């Protein structure tokens, strides 16, 4: 009896694949309608241009040879602009609603008022760039925004951003609010066909 069970057990042990699907989820920009004129003028200081060439080298803000591990800090500085540098993006004052009483650092009505960056990242790659490099660049950009969101979340709500549960309406509102403050503004120019991301 035990022998047969053993045999089956070993079969299932071998056949089992326990891989959980993981990855970076992104939203592709929709194809614009034909009659829609899609030319938004963006101030030059508000764009962080990231170029990847065919030999997987980076050029960020006109500087050639940036390493991938420097990109996260550059992106974070770009979005926060701590010293109000005129070369880094403008900010606009915005009001974002959080659930009332969710944080002691917010007024009683839960409205956050503060500066939101107008920055946009423009990512452009060559057709010969390898996918691995492209994805690690994407990863650094996503990591920068995630860190900013997480810092904000810790400061105001004393919680990790990732631990907020979307099925809980209050925490979902918090998450949506933080997303409005730190937007994942990455526009990808695709060779020949330039599409903006909103």
């Amino acid at each position, binding site marked *: 009896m035990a022998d047969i*069970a053993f045999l*089956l*057990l070993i079969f299932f042990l071998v056949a089992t*694949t326990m891989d959980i699907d993981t990855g970076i989820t992104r939203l592709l920009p929709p194809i614009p309608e034909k009659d829609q004129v899609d030319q938004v003028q963006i101030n030059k200081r508000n764009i962080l241009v990231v170029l990847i060439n065919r030999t997987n080298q980076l050029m960020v803000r006109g500087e050639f040879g940036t390493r991938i591990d420097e990109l996260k800090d550059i992106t974070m500085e770009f979005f926060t602009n701590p010293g109000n540098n005129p070369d880094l993006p403008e900010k606009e004052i915005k009001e974002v609603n959080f659930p009332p009483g969710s944080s002691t650092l917010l007024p009683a009505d839960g409205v956050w008022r503060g500066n939101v960056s107008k920055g946009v990242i423009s990512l452009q*790659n*060559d*057709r010969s760039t390898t996918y691995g490099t492209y994805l690690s660049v994407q990863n650094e950009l996503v*990591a920068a925004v995630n860190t900013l969101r997480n810092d904000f979340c810790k400061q105001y709500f004393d919680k990790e951003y990732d631990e907020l549960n979307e099925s809980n309406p209050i925490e979902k509102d918090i998450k949506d609010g933080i997303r409005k403050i730190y937007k994942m503004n990455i526009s990808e120019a695709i060779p020949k066909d330039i599409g903006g991301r909103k």
Partner: protein
Amino acid sequence: MAKFSRTKGKGAPKINTSSLPDIIFMLLFFFMVSTTMRETEVFVKVKVPEVTEVKKLEQKSLVSYIYIGRPSRSLESVYGSEPMIQLNDKLVNVEGIPADEVQDFVLSEREAMAEDQKNKMVISLRIDSDIPMGKVDDVKQALRKAKALIINYSARKDYSNKGR
């Protein structure tokens, strides 16, 4: 004292194994239940990149897979070593523009989904890290045309530089 000296030198007592089948069966059932048989055979070599910011994909029923990679060794003689696209279980030659095939694939996958979930469809792109982006961009354009806008770049969690 004779009582004690008798047990000496007899060796270890036998372990009672009568409950062993129960334990084995329990393990067996666990693995039987948790096993998901691989539904599609992958014809291309895919080694997804390792990155730090991965998220888990919830709700497998919403996910369709597109693989991009070089053909596996046994198929190299048939297809050569140029990158190819695999849509679920169908290999597509990408000499031309794969746009139509990808769009048909998305439409048929969407057709098979429940009515209320059609706009939540996720395309998981399992792409080998050495593939040039040209192929990937073609697929992305095709997905935009097919209005499948939620995509997931499949990647494994990179634990090596966590402290960064």
